[in-house]
């Protein structure tokens, strides 16, 4: 937990979740990963975006889970989905085909152009820390119309040079992306300090909005590269009571469901 982001009667995770949820619109087709993005997308669905289309890479399209899944393929995702298709199909016909409006990604490291590392810390052949790997990220980064990255800011995570590029960000100087990518790449980084967006001329991510209880200087200090700022850094409104209530209720239901003891099969 970043002390500086811990100013309100809410946690940094809650602030990030609410901020991400607000960026999703009704009808948006959203490729969701587990954890905070899943909470944000479902929060949006329960609030202002009842017709948001949630797709989890397990092949569940248009799913409406009552509680947050622990895994990307929890049973409830299938039971509440419009369609349940195979993994090859989800990647070929849905993601690669450019049908996704927003994809969420996390990572261990990010650089100023939104390149992400979720593969390895240290050299690939002699890893200091072996991370889980790229999974669905490389093609989500290419083919979702836009990508939102959710990641807590720290100099260890927001680095000048990645140890490994697991999924591609933007090209320096605002150059076009690699041919064949259906999408525009990362367009926002939601951190525990605020929101970073790419500067149009350089494609370098800069701070465009901060939370109430942090300063621009805090955000700069938490970034491994010299973080630029937009001409005007706006303030992200704090979570509303409704947002917090619905989010906390969702998390409560989720905890209750996940703590319910499972009878081992006989």
């Amino acid at each position: 937990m970043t002390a500086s982001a811990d100013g309100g009667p809410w946690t940094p995770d809650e602030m990030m979740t609410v901020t991400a949820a607000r960026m999703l619109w009704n009808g948006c087709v959203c490729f969701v990963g587990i954890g905070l993005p899943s909470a944000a997308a479902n929060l949006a669905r329960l609030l202002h975006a009842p017709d948001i289309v949630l797709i989890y890479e397990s092949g569940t399209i248009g799913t409406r889970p009552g509680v947050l899944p622990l895994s990307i393929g929890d049973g409830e995702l299938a039971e509440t989905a419009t369609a349940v298709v195979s993994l090859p199909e989800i990647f070929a016909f849905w993601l690669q085909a450019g049908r996704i409006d927003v994809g969420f990604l996390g990572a261990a490291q990010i650089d100023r152009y939104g390149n992400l590392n979720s593969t390895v810390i240290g050299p690939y052949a002699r890893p200091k820390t072996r991370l889980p790997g790229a999974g669905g990220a490389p093609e989500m980064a290419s083919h979702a119309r836009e990508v939102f990255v959710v990641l807590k800011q720290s100099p260890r995570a927001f680095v000048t040079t990645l140890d490994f590029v697991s999924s591609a960000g933007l090209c320096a100087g605002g150059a076009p992306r690699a041919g064949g990518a259906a999408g525009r790449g990362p367009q926002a980084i939601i951190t525990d300090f605020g929101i970073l967006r790419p500067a149009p001329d350089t494609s370098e991510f800069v701070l465009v909005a901060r939370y109430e209880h942090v300063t621009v200087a805090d955000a700069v200090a938490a970034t491994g590269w010299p973080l630029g700022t937009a001409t005007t850094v706006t303030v992200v409104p704090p979570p509303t009571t409704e947002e917090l209530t619905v989010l906390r209720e969702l998390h409560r239901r989720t905890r209750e469901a996940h703590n319910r003891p499972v009878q081992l099969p006989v």
Partner: protein
Amino acid sequence: MPILTLQQAVCQHVRDGDSVALEGFTHLIPFAAGHELIRQRRRGLHLIRMTPDLVYDQMIGAGCAGRLTFSWGGNPGVGSAHRVRDAIENGWPAPLEINEHSHAGMAAAYTAGAARLPFGLLRGYLGTDLARVNPSIRTVTCPYSGERLATVPALNPDVTILHAQKADRAGNVLITGILGAQKEAGLAARKLLVTVEEIVEDLAAPMNAVVLPHWVVTAVACVPGGAWPSYARGYYPRDNAFYIAWDEVARDRGRFASWLDRYVLGTADFADFLAAQRAAGGAP
């Protein structure tokens, strides 16, 4: 298509050094088969799986594997696959060569394998380092647009092992729910072993359901609960508590070895394993 015990099926059809894919994306993960491979002390396997999670954490920690083809290796929603990490980072208990892809690449490779094409085609790996560290990721040039597209070599495992809900006595297999790449991995394999929750007189498969006909199935074994702690739609839910508790067990070589000795090597079969886990309250 004979109906065998799991012991017989593994004994007859999986050899040391084989390439073996245990598929199932979160759902229907063939844990029972993984344990049986550990019990029969298979060595030098080339393990293939999009998501080497707990089942491969256990198999790799037990020393079954020499090579891993994968696209995401962790404990879903929890964190690291510590035994996989220990093998990659420290070569414990045996060095583990890795062949790393993205999910989309693995999915295309299985699909190509099922179609007996030599390679799969995708718009993938754009701008990433994966192609740099994995020389099997290459390109072809589109004969129409001139565009370069990524290719992955087809995956054709010596053996694919799946867990499914049901088989009938002829060996037709029904899978419903989250499908992962199970059908593609099954059809890509030279041999296909399937464990099922039950064997029924009539599959009662809905129209257009995923049914693997008996003549592409090498053997079926009936192993109720065989996907636990993952889940089998219609039979039992995912045991999230086990996944969470596994983190502690797998972090430590000694604790993992004790768990393995007691629950896998120390049990006769998966029913015995489940009984032992039940006796322990379901925690690993």
